[in-house]
Structures are given as structure tokens and as C-alpha cells.
């Protein structure tokens, strides 16, 4: 079917090539001048109270430690310079409740589909991977609160830099195929995901997230058992997680165990009391603004980041420099990444590298020859196929969600 072509990778990318690609980037990313410094034991994120340790967890290389229990681990920006897919051991980690799964027996694991359906399902992993057609999609997984630390005025929450995101090739089955087998009853409207994570206190609301049935059936929403052609790390939701391309990661429930079909909107706390954004363009409002309609967060907007040069780097005057980075379109494909070296007055189109599908990171490149000594502000701006571009002014909302302002880095031309 034609429409699926632009985002499925299918057999085009053989497993071996793919694994090689994941490791290859390291050398390509080694830019002699202006390179992002090597990882040390600590890192200072550029906002108040932004000192962080780097800490290795099981199946993870040292990542930026935000919280030990349950783990909040951020991917250092340097990783994004090393390739278009984020290696599993560098992929950020985000749980909510304290009691997270640490042991999974693949023989006894079950996924249930129940509620407003004619034929409830309880399947083990073996049947799940063999009874339904395999499906693959490259998609960015980004925390709703990615970049929260940059909000001004600041807001409480997980104080992430820009690394609460990652791009992976997800392999699994379409949710549509599973739901079709369960055969929703007339009047079915929502599909609610639950995973194995739990609170430790009796009154802590369990973490549940819902999508509208039509969305769940769109043939892109899937249940993944593979991440970059490997099993998911435990901390990213082994053995199964929901994948909701184009939508913020809060819906991508990890260690997925229950899928409940509802005949009414979901009023559980994590849908009605948390992850709410203003119902406005760019989810933007003014601090203290009253009477703003709040709705559950949904789709992502476009973003782009220069990854081979860090803030404060020195570039040689009259010497041609390659500027490169990653970008994504959000809920639709990327059309352009524009580059500005004069603080946003004039823009040039960058060259986009290979397209892995409309929900994937895509690398961009541009040659830049500084001609004037002194300070310069470099910016990149992603534009998606809906014509949505990153805003020049940052958005603000009380929970610190969906930041996607045009990023800028300051360099010295010497």
C-alpha cells in the first residue's frame, strides 16, 4: 500500500547493516575543532540546579542521572552526533512510579486485551510474535517534558535538558491487528494501556494512558518487542511497549501488560489530572493566565539541534566548517531544516541526509564559512510537511511540556 511506503523500512535495511550503522557514527562524529567534550563523571546542564552525575544502570552506558528511583536518565547530546538512531544503551529512561519491573520471564509473560470487546485475548509472547504480521517503523520517542529545565519562568517536574528523546527502529505488531482479533463491541471509543509499573503507596494512582480507538487502529500505533533490532532494554520497557509514532512518549506505555477497550473517555488521573497542555498553538500560554482550556497532550512539533558543535565553540574565520545535526518533523515528515548564522535574520536551506521515514530523526548538513571575527549566533529551524515550523519564541505552560523553540548556539569566530 503506497501510503505506508514512506515510513516503513521493511527489508530495505538488513539487520547487519543496521547494527553496523549504530556503531559506525562514533568515528564520523569526531570533529577535531569545536567537538563536544568527552563524557566525564559529571555534567552541568545550563540552568539553575543543573549539576548532574553520569551514572551507568543495567544495560545502559553512563547517562545523565536525574533520579535514581524510579530511574530518570537523560541521553547526553553528544550521542545524537553519532548517528541517526539512538543506541539502546544510550536511550533515555523515564518511569513514573517507584515499583518498576526488574525481572521478566518470557515464558510466563502475558498481554491481555479486554473490556468492551467481543473476544478478549490473553496471549503469551511466543504467540504474539508469531500470530500477527511483523511491522517496523522508525520513530522518535520524546518525553513530553523534554527540555523542561529551559522553561522561563521555571516549573517543577523532571528537570531535563534536551536529551529526554531518542530515535529507534521499532519492530513488533500493529495494535490494529491485535484489536481486530479482539473485535471491539459497538460503542467502543478508547483504548487504555497499562504496564507492570506500580506505586508503593496504596493511594498512588496507577499509570494508565489512553488513545482514541480510531487512533489506536490507524495501522501505525504498534506494540514493539524490538528496538534497533534488539530486545528492548528492561529500562525501556522489555518485553513489550506501546509505540505511538508522532505522539509524545507518555502514551508509549512500557512493559505493556493490559489493553482495555473503553466505551467512555478515560478519566484516570494520568489522563485527566496530568499531562495536560493548553489547547492553543504550540501548547503556549502566559504564566498565570486564567481560563485557559487544558487538554491531554498529544502530537509533537518539529525540532532540530546542531550536534557537531557545542555552545561556546571557536570556529576559524575564512575556514569552511561543516555544521550538522538531527531534526524531526514531529507528527509528520520533515520538509526542511534552515540554518542561520546571523541570529535569525537570514536563513539558508541545509542538505537533508537519508530519510528513514516521517517519524524518524533525520540528519542535516550545511557548509558554513565565517567571514567576520567576533561572536556569532548559529540557529537551525525545522519545518514539517504540514508547514509547521519551530517558533522563534519559546512556548510556556505550567507543566513544562512540548518545548520546541528554535535552538541557538553561540560561537566565537577567531
Amino acid at each position, binding site marked *: 500500500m503506497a501510503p505506508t511506503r514512506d515510513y516503513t523500512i521493511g527489508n530495505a535495511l538488513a*539487520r547487519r547493516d543496521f547494527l553496523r550503522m549504530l556503531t559506525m557514527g562514533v568515528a564520523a562524529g569526531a570533529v577535531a575543532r569545536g567537538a563536544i567534550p568527552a563524557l566525564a*563523571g*559529571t555534567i552541568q546542564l545550563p*540552568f*539553575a*540546579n*543543573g*549539576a*548532574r*552525575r553520569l*551514572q551507568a*544502570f*543495567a*544495560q545502559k552506558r553512563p547517562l545523565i*542521572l*536525574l*533520579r*535514581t*528511583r*524510579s*530511574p*530518570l536518565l537523560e541521553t547526553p547530546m553528544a550521542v545524537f552526533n553519532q548517528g541517526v538512531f539512538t543506541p539502546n544503551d544510550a536511550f533515555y529512561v523515564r518511569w513514573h512510579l*517507584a515499583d*518498576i519491573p*526488574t*525481572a*521478566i*520471564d*518470557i*515464558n510466563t509473560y502475558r498481554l491481555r486485551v479486554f473490556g468492551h470487546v467481543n473476544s478478549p485475548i490473553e496471549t503469551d*509472547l*511466543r504467540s504474539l*510474535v*508469531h500470530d500477527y504480521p*511483523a511491522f*517496523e517503523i522508525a520513530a522518535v520517542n520524546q518525553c513530553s517534558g523534554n527540555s523542561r*529545565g529551559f522553561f522561563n519562568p*521555571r*516549573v*517543577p517536574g523532571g*528537570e531535563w535538558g534536551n536529551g529526554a528523546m531518542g530515535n529507534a527502529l521499532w*519492530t513488533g505488531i500493529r495494535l490494529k491487528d491485535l484489536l481486530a482479533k479482539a473485535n471491539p463491541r459497538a460503542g467502543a471509543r478508547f483504548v487504555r494501556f497499562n504496564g507492570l509499573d506500580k*506505586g*508503593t*503507596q*496504596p*493511594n*498512588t*494512582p496507577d499509570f494508565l494512558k489512553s488513545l482514541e480507538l480510531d487512533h489506536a487502529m490507524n495501522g501505525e500505533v504498534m506494540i514493539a*518487542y*524490538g528496538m534497533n*533490532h*534488539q*530486545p528492548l532494554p*528492561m*529500562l525501556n520497557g*522489555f*518485553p513489550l511497549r506501546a509505540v505511538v509514532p508522532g505522539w509524545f512518549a507518555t502514551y508509549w506505555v512500557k512493559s505493556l501488560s493490559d489493553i482495555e477497550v473503553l466505551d467512555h473517555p478515560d478519566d484516570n*488521573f494520568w489522563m485527566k*489530572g496530568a499531562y495536560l497542555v493548553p489547547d492553543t498553538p504550540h501548547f503556549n500560554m502566559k504564566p498565570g493566565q486564567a481560563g485557559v482550556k487544558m487538554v491531554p497532550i498529544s502530537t509533537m512539533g518539529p525540532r532540530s539541534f546542531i550536534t557537531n558543535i557545542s555552545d561556546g565553540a571557536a570556529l576559524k574565520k575564512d575556514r569552511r566548517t561543516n555544521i550538522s545535526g538531527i531534526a524531526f518533523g514531529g507528527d509528520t515528515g520533515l520538509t526542511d531544516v534552515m540554518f542561520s548564522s546571523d541570529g535569525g535574520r537570514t536563513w539558508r536551506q541545509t542538505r537533508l541526509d537519508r530519510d528513514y521515514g516521517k517519524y524518524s530523526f533525520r540528519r542535516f548538513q550545511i557548509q558554513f564559512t565565517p567571514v567576520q571575527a567576533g561572536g556569532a549566533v548559529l540557529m537551525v529551524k525545522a519545518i514539517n510537511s504540514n508547514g509547521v515550523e519551530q517558533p522563534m519564541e519559546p512556548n510556556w505552560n505550567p507543566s513544562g511540556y512540548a518545548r520546541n523553540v528554535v535552538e541557538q548556539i553561540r560561537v566565537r569566530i577567531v
Partner: protein
Amino acid sequence: MKHRKYLYLAAAAFAISGCMKQTLITTPGGIVLRSQHISLPSHGREFSGAPESSVANTYCLMCHSGGMVLTQPPLDLAQWQNEVRKMIKVYGCPLPGSDVDQVAQFIAHASQNPPPLSARAEK
């Protein structure tokens, strides 16, 4: 003492490997799924200093470690009172209502004066 610790570890490893049969599931695309078991680092009583630290250690580390608190931006006292009330009302923190103000005051200070990173080492 040390030997005993290793014995426990070995016993635990044996128990885990025993109850999880070493079967594999190979997916159509060649991904091999195996049973998994990880262990996570622990954290201690992460608040120190003023006498209120012991209340904070009791009530603010039940559902998350101190990183959730010690990485917060500068918030004013009213914001911290709201946060503590939210923990009670929304998430079920059993802190008595009469302690909200003193815990909020302690946290407002503690969160902006976190222990040095070297002391925040996780085991």
C-alpha cells in the same frame, strides 16, 4: 562477612536462573528474546542538615529518591507548599497536614543546596 554476601548473591543468581527456564523466543525478523533480570542502584537517606531532614527522609523518599526533589529549580515557599500538598492529595503521601509548612520550608532550602555530586554517588 564478605564471603557470606557472595554466597547470598550466588544463591540468588541460582534461584533466578532456576525459575526462569532458558528458553528463547526468536521473532520472525531474527530478534532473540530471553528472560531478563536486572538490579537497580539503591539510595540512602538523601536529606541531611536541619532537624526536619528526618521528616523529609521519612515522607519524601517513599515513592521516589531525592533526585526528584534536589534537582528542582528555585521555587518559592508557596510553590513548595503546593508541591507537598500535591504529594499528599494526588499521590497519597501520608505526611500529616500539620507538617506541610515545616517540610516545605526545609525542602525549599535543601533543594537549592543539594549535597555535592561526589556525595550523591549511587551504590
